[in-house]
């Protein structure tokens, strides 16, 4: 993955200063779920605060401890991760029902007759 030394072109930068980096993301491209999952990946490397400036956009505020040059590099990785998370979300939506079917079928056909039976005093399965 190419490391961007500056914020990649096309990124809507609201602020790039000593106070941090602020990027505006279109919710038409990235759902809230995708944005949150992407932010989660980076919470180990910087402080992130999300804000909504209007119904169509989310602002991601990056604050790092090592100065803004690292944040600009990080923004490039953030951009790639957004795409990865968006693709994962799309695939999950397309294949979710099949994956649920597989797991349901796996346990529906399970044969526990060889497993020693639980005693009558065991607690119920759900609490």
């Amino acid at each position, binding site marked *: 993955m190419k490391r961007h030394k500056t914020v990649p072109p096309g990124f809507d930068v609201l602020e790039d200063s000593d106070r941090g980096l602020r990027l505006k993301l279109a919710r038409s491209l990235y759902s809230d779920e995708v944005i949150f999952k992407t932010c989660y*990946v980076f919470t180990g490397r910087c402080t992130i605060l999300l804000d909504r400036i209007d119904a169509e956009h989310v602002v991601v505020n990056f604050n790092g401890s090592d100065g803004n040059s690292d944040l600009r590099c990080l923004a490039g990785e953030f951009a790639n991760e957004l795409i990865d998370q968006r693709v994962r979300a799309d695939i999950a939506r397309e294949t979710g029902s099949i994956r649920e079917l597989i797991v349901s079928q796996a346990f529906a056909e*399970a044969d526990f007759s060889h497993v020693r039976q639980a005693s009558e005093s065991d607690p119920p399965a759900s*609490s």
Partner: protein
Amino acid sequence: MDFDGRRILVNEVGEHLVLDNEVFDELVEHRLSPHNPEFQSLKAKHFIADSTTTTATRLLATKYRTKKSFLGGFTGLHIFVVTLRCDHSCHYCQVSRVSQNRLKYDMSRESAERALELVFRSPAESIKIEFQGGEPLLNFDSIRFVVGEARKQADAEGREVTFVIATNLVFLTEEILDFLRDNDVLVSTSLDGPAHVHNSNRPRPGNDSYELAIRGIERVRQALGFERVSAIMTTSRSSLEYPEAIVDEYVAQGFDHIFVRHISPYGFAVRTRKRTGYELPAFLDFYKRALAHILEINRTGRFLVEAYAQTLLTKILTPFPAGYVDLQSPAGAGIGVAVYNYDGDVYVSDEARMLAEMGDTSFRLGNVHTHTYEELFGGPQLRSLVEASVIESLPGCADCAFQPYCGCDPLENYVTQGTVVGHRPTSEFHFRNLEIIKHLLRLYHGDDPFIKQLFWSWVQNRPVSELIPSPPR
């Protein structure tokens, strides 16, 4: 997941494929031509299907059920901490050991009896009882009692029971060796490397831990059989300079398995962390150097397995569970393994016991004298721990391509990050496994065909020469 400039795909049951980015883009955009050579690979690995039959889903369901088959037996490994007494003062020790003469830290017969009752409430057809300490041979009477009673109970119920004793071998006697032989007890001991590494890690009066271990290994082999003793190592800071020498020591002592193991953040290891601890990159470098040396040793025809790689490769290359409690979902703490302490307290793992010794009893399930089996193994405490270790639902893990290969350690999360769920972006467990899995996959998909054969030989636990008609060139 990005994989060195390409893409690695992993499906629900762990089958994987590496694709060029262009092919991946065509796939996710539903533009991939059936004439593309990768199309057949994707079909073979069940990433795509162009049939209206249910064959693929039934096959995947079978593989998924196989991967989770460990759940049926529930608790199979039962650890009896028969004493806290020990003669060693290992820097990385997870145990809050006491000196040899403090008999009040021995497991009583009553506690052993009650613990055995609980052991045989487990539905597992095959039960393993492991004796730990301190140094368990310092309470040999308890071991003799548990083995005898467990065997009677297992025979009466038609179940299989096996025994392992984790010992430093210092207190072996002919009587003990005869007993171990007559009762098919396996022996596990520590061997951290050549003498200067081992003795540095494991001080004792006389500074002769290595010499005693080697002598003990030889005695066990002569009395019980060559294959009846295994060794494990712990990587401390002083080990980091000597990955090749440590591997060579295992070869010299005739072992065909070595578990290149990182240090755990529990017990005395916490207190001595400044002396024994290390950062993750240092351990990963150590691991890769050790693994490279192991691969070269295998290339000469000497069969030698790295046990952690073997576990991961079993999960990567087969649908079978690997039987390693930290690499399963839900984690094995409490459901795959249970620990019965000398005082009757029951814990979800040895690490939980160590936390209790340090004053934190969060993972103590109860006591054999005051709690029923249902309260210990069906209560809300264990249920919530299990819930927190289902990686299919954990942040970060739920979306990870390597989820079918990985697991979690809720106690390591708790100790290092403050919660059992943990925080993946800062988790050493996450980064350690991520990098080792990637490293193994890089080797497997690299240009060296011997590596692929060798990894399959590790999965099957037999030399390469027994996998193919002729030795590799």
